[in-house]
């Protein structure tokens, strides 16, 4: 597929119609978390891509040597965050996202560690 010059502008405006959120709106959401819902489609798109990579990494797990797996434990935290993000309908500004339970995180990380997963 050959994209003519100016093709990018076209995709830009299309993406705009799809999502339609402005920089100012995102910045405003910092003051008022409810406004974060407007940016949710964009957050959703990024989160989906993150999910895809997460899944890829986990499918590869069986080929990864056991002693290497702890290196990938940071993924546990990522995975938990993405789940929580989904629960708040991809509003990245939702205050509930900032209240993470450290106990839960430690428990999950330990669980994955002993099961030799990530």
């Amino acid at each position, binding site marked *: 597929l050959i994209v003519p010059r100016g093709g990018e502008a076209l995709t830009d405006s299309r993406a705009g119609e799809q999502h339609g959120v402005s920089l100012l709106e995102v910045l405003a959401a910092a003051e008022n978390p409810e406004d974060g819902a407007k940016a949710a489609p964009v957050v959703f798109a990024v989160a989906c891509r993150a999910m895809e990579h997460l899944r890829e990494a986990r499918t590869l797990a069986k080929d990864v040597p056991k002693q290497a797996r702890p290196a990938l434990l*940071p993924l546990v935290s990522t995975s938990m965050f993405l789940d929580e993000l989904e629960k708040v309908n991809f509003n990245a500004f939702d205050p509930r996202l900032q209240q993470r339970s450290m106990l839960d995180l430690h428990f999950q990380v330990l669980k994955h560690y002993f099961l030799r997963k990530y």
Partner: protein
Amino acid sequence: MNAEVASIKDSVRSNHLTGKIRLQWWRERIYALYESPSSGDEASRETLLLRELARAVQQHGLTRRWFERLLDARDQDLDVEQPRSLAELESYADKTAASLLYLTLECLGVRDTAADRAAHHAGMAIGLATLLRGTPFHALRQQVYLPEELMHQVSRR
């Protein structure tokens, strides 16, 4: 070290040049670690962090390229206001988060293709998620990292 380098952009929001200089300092330290271990030793006595870094590099034979990739990405980030596309964001995530994972793997003494591929994907997942998690923090600093292409270009109100 990552925390240190990562915070450079946030702390020098007002002064672009200072950030560049601090990154340059890190470049020289890394260079010293690899090129002249003896003088590196002297320099690394300066801080605990550098001392530990030097030890890790020697013990595990860490690859210099990962350090450099990390610094390059942070350097470019200083020049970027908002990423254009999701792909650009992924490449940033890869260079930062995945580089760290590669270094971790080397610390564990693993040289394995599957592990590297997994680390590549894991790095991007971690990078993207960290970015989303940081969105409110960045917005407070008038900074948006959500890809421009995915957002509507604004009529300023």
